């Protein structure tokens, strides 16, 4: 075998390993969204999503369940903070989720907003795995009227705070739908400002009400 031919074989092997490595690395991106306006699960998928269900009468939200990422949380009522952001629960209740009570309740027409912490200053919090949520996943909100409103995730995106479009994040995407936004922090942590540089925004819409008490 000539030296040239052997060199070519080695080069092909190295390129193959390089490509293989890139595939492995990129397969993990969706689980840990990074900064940038990345629509990790926003691109159309092969499987269609269920049709939207007509909105329900308004009822106060009580609890949130997102089985695919193991979230079960109590819902608190909150307003806006001074900056005009929905105020999350205090860190001492980092396992709870805040509903923006100035907007519609989950299940009613419009976009209901639920906010939770990704972490505290020492531990993961209720929405630590929010960025790993997949398109098509179920999100359930238990309501004061005894019904459970079930939503289907249509989109998970990372929105940098420098390019924040409030209408896109908080506003409804389509008329006549009951929508739900789950929002937490993501991206890189800026130690100087003690803040993450992005929001992770999960968008879901009402696909079914479940009545009764226990739906797993």
């Amino acid at each position, binding site marked *: 075998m000539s*030296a040239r031919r*052997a060199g070519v074989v*080695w080069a092909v*092997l*190295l390129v193959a*390993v*390089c490509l*293989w*490595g890139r595939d*492995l*690395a990129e*397969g*993990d991106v969706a689980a*840990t969204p990074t900064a940038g306006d990345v629509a990790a699960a926003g691109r159309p998928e092969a499987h269609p999503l269920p049709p939207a269900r007509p909105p*329900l*009468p*308004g*009822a106060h939200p009580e609890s949130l369940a997102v089985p695919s990422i193991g979230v079960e949380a109590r819902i608190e009522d909150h*307003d806006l903070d001074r*900056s*005009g*952001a*929905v105020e*999350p629960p205090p*860190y001492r209740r980092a396992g709870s989720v805040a509903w923006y*009570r*100035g*907007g*519609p*309740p989950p299940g*009613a*027409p*419009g976009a209901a*907003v639920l906010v*939770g*912490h*990704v*972490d*505290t*200053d*020492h*531990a993961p*919090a209720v929405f*630590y795995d929010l960025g790993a949520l997949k398109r098509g996943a179920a999100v359930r909100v238990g309501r004061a009227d005894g019904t459970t409103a079930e939503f289907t995730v249509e989109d998970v995106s990372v929105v940098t705070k420098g390019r*924040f479009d*409030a209408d896109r994040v*908080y*506003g409804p995407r389509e008329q*006549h739908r009951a929508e739900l936004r789950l*929002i*937490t*922090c*993501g991206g890189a*942590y800026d*130690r100087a400002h*003690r*803040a*993450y540089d*992005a*929001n992770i925004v999960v968008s879901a819409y009402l696909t079914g009400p479940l009545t009764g008490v226990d739906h797993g």
Partner: protein
Amino acid sequence: MDPLRPVLCTALVALAAGAPPPVVAHAGDSPATAAAAPAVIVLTGTPGGHVRLRVAGCAGGKAVARSAAFVADAPMTKGPAGLFTEATVRPAAAPGTYPVRVDCDGSGPAAAEGRLTVVGRGRHSPVAPVPAGGGGTAAAPAPPGTPGLIVAGTGVLLAAGLIWHRRRLDAGRR
């Protein structure tokens, strides 16, 4: 904004002006209702939601509630506690304040007048990103995962093999 604030403000203004007590109706899809006549109407609604309205005082037992923010004029029907209707707020109604008026069937002054505040989007909507993390899990850059180690290890082995191979070729030529 606290949905009660406009209701309270209007009630205070009405009291200060010696006006009759307001008809207070909450909006959304599960509104509360109250009645008085002749009356000041104070409603809060969301685009696409419903507001319920109850008034007393129309002798004919019929009335119509009107507002530019309603999908259509809302005929009021007689119930055990006066006249009642449920109006739908236009889904495209912009946030703001809209006059509301209830006219008894026939002529005469309005049975009730007031305003509907549409909230939900616009100036009372959130505008800023949420501050929802303390940074406790962002302490260190993530160590390379198993896939990274496998790729790096394979690359090193291949590179070592290449060097060994070339040295052997060089030695063979001498």
